[in-house]
């Protein structure tokens, strides 16, 4: 993308006014997306975006500038702007010698999406549409989206780091609307991985479509969700977002440093049920949140955050690790070259336990069984978090019974972690997610075994 000699010169220019640290992050992203809606392939969109972001750190101050001009003069101008933004006097010439970071890719990409004919991508959409509509006459509307992206990045900094990565991701989603006596209902299913078009060797789009359609049809007879505190059983692979919100964000070192996390000062302490071991793992094969290096040039890692209920580690980026005089954990990520990196999750999941998932339901006299969760949101300072259920059922006398309408669940992170009273021996990763933080979205994965929270507040309307 950029010559090494140019990078060295640009880093030198960035440090000319006396910075402590300088970094060049260059990105070349191409993507294509195709959308079918209302029985028609509406449009095929493709695009390219490339540029570089330059960061200069002086003391506790970060200066940042970005440019879409990757020529040497363009990069030097951005470097000078970043240095001016960090604004300190001083001076002196520093030279930077780069050495390449070699990090293994989380998995090999077999079929680059750019080598696949557009007609083949569009054909997937039609197959999904047909399969969804064939599921039942109640299906009134189907939309399907195919998307791929290839993101090539180069990171170099004044500590000598030089690293590159080539991140290919492919995704597919189907949304259905069903119509019945009680109005409209929706069902959605999606899949995404850090792979190329070979995703569709193992994923049958017809199955995704049928699953989304069945979900919408099932919900036509759904009754209002309960209102109040109940035991909640969460099916494997449906609710990793619970941990993402209940404690994931609270374990990000920037929230810890700013004293806006309920998990501050808790390393070594019991913060969860002993049944809970939580891991953030960017090296996890083809999963959606995987990467070879993070967006600061450091190899992705497998970091155990909570082990048998004990808090063992936070997640770190370069800046927060530097302030604490320690190493990062490969969690410095950014949405694009136009953004500063910060601490972000990758694939966050809870390890399997020993219980039988069916037995967990049988031993729940009255509660809610969640088969699919949507997104969520947390206030890390208070620990209060919400997450939405998009497929759920009542549990009555140890049996899964009637479907429930959509609602949010609310809990407090530390309370919910302590209230996990059963963890099953099964495990699955969930749907691909986009985690938003301070206006930046990055791809993240989550996963969990079937588990039960002894008390969670279900935000329905049933009287």
């Amino acid at each position, binding site marked *: 993308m950029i010559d090494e000699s140019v990078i060295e010169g640009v880093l030198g220019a960035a440090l000319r006014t006396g910075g402590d640290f300088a970094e060049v992050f260059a990105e070349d992203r191409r993507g294509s997306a195709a959308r079918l809606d209302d029985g028609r392939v509406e449009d095929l969109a493709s695009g390219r975006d490339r540029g570089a972001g330059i960061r200069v750190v002086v003391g506790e101050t970060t200066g940042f500038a970005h440019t879409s001009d990757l020529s040497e003069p363009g990069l030097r101008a951005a470097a000078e702007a970043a240095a001016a933004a960090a604004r300190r006097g001083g001076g002196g010439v520093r030279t930077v010698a780069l050495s390449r970071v070699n990090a293994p890719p989380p998995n090999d990409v077999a079929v680059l999406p750019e080598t696949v004919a557009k007609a083949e991508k569009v054909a997937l959409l039609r197959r999904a549409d047909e399969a969804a509509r064939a599921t039942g006459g109640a299906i009134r509307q189907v939309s399907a989206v195919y998307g791929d992206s290839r993101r090539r990045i180069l990171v170099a900094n004044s500590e000598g780091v030089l690293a590159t990565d080539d991140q290919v991701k492919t995704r597919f989603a189907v949304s259905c609307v069903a119509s019945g006596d009680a109005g409209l209902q929706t069902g959605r299913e999606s899949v995404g991985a850090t792979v190329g078009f070979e995703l569709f060797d193992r994923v049958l789009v017809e199955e995704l479509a049928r699953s989304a359609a069945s979900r919408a049809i099932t919900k036509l007879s759904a009754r209002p969700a309960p*209102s109040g505190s109940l035991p909640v059983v969460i099916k494997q692979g449906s609710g990793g977002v619970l941990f993402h919100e209940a404690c994931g964000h609270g374990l990000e070192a920037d929230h810890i440093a700013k004293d806006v996390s309920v998990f501050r000062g808790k390393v070594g302490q019991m913060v969860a049920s002993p049944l809970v071991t939580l891991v953030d793992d960017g090296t996890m094969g083809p999963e959606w949140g995987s990467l070879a290096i993070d967006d600061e040039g450091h190899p992705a890692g497998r970091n155990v955050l909570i082990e048998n209920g004990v808090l063992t580690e936070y997640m770190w980026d370069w800046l927060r690790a530097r302030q604490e005089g320690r190493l990062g954990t490969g969690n410095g990520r950014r949405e694009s070259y136009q953004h500063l990196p910060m601490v972000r999750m990758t694939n966050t999941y809870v390890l399997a336990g020993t219980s039988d998932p069916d037995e967990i339901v049988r031993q729940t006299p009255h509660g809610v069984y969640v088969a699919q969760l949507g997104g969520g949101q947390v206030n890390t300072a208070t620990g209060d978090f919400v997450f939405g259920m998009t497929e759920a059922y009542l549990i009555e006398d140890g049996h899964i019974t009637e479907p429930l309408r959509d609602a949010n669940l609310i809990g407090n992170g530390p309370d919910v972690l302590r209230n996990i009273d059963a963890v099953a021996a099964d495990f699955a990763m969930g749907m691909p997610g986009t985690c938003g933080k301070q206006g930046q979205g990055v791809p993240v994965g989550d996963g969990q075994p079937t588990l039960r929270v002894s008390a969670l507040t279900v935000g329905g309307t049933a009287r």
Partner: protein
Amino acid sequence: MSGGNSDLLELATRVAGWAQDGEQVEAYVARGRETEVRVYEGEVESLSSAESAGIGIRVVSGSRQGFAYAGSLDADVVHETLDEARDNAGFASPDEWVGLAGPDGVAPADLDLWRDDLAAYPTDVKVARALELERAVRAGDSRIRAVESAEWGDAAVESAVASSTGIRASSRRTVCYLSASAVAGSAADTQTGSGYSVGRSPDDLDLDKAAGDAVRRATRLLGAVKPHSAHLSVVFEPEITATLLAVIGGTLDGEAVLKGRSLFADRVGEEVSVGAITLVDDPTDPEAYGAARFDAEGLATRRNVLIEAGVLREFLYNSYSARRAGTVSTASAVRAGFKSAPGTGARALTVVPGQHSPEEILALVGDGLFVQSVSGVHSGVNPVSGDFSVGAEGVLIRGGELAGPVREFTIASTIQRMLSGVVAVGSDLERLPSSAAGLTLAIADVSMSGE
């Protein structure tokens, strides 16, 4: 009025001129400049400055549409992008209603959304304002324990759209803001609150209001407990009302209606709310944050009355959905920047203000819940079924007065029931950085789920 960006309109017009026989071409070109200053504990934490530019091209050929974009305005990239959009069009399904907008004779509102004094505002002063904001939040109340963030931000955005069907439109706008997030209380009882002020020019910003709101919202919740579940009346702060209006705006998208995805389909002319509710989308209002002279397809914006005295009047359309519905565009095409083809959406929703002050509304409600923040709108509100369930924080209302603060609960209803359950509309119209303005709103019979 559209002074400084004639080069963008020229480029867009040139690209539109490359349309071949039997083909329509539209180019949307945008350029932005922004600065963001974050301060923390009396120091500049980060200062970012950036310029970006890009182009999005739509090609309609043989009733098929293709789109491509690039984050660059270089000549060779622009040519490649057009070729790519052309190629993409070949893979879409034919659709008789597909097509670009054409001039419709409506004159654009006389709006000037650009302020030269923002461009001339020195970076040092931006830094000083952010530091001053942080100090003001800290000094606002002895119970403020930390200021999680204090920020200055500004942006100047210019754009132009031109098409082979005769569209020529350009516009530019400036925006700046101050925002802060405060943390109050002790480790055992932590609460947070945010405040901000937004304007087109630095002179528009009210630093004291931004600081005061953050302090008041954080301290007001100290000692908050989880409430018992109940069905009660709720009073929304203006910001929460704006969130609700933005959701409702999405359900009034004409395309969602045509495709059977709106709970309001087939209900034009029916009562969907109470008489006190008149909902308008008016981007020609110069005071609206989302004010704009043109929509994303280059048609002059206009005032659209969506709900009039409780009766559903019309939906929002872009040129595609209007053609398909057999009507005319309401100039409601919107884009998320140059990287997306136009969709449909509201820009400047507002409920016509009522007669009551917020205090009168509390008195009117008597006993209920005052809501100051909601969470999980994206995960708990289904705009197709109408199910509405969000996490919330607020203060219980007893005898018409704010009583005990509460947290960790949800409020739930359906969009349909909430519209019918409005009992009072505030007179306190507040402009917010959103596609909707806010005011105090009281709604009866909402479920609160807690203990």
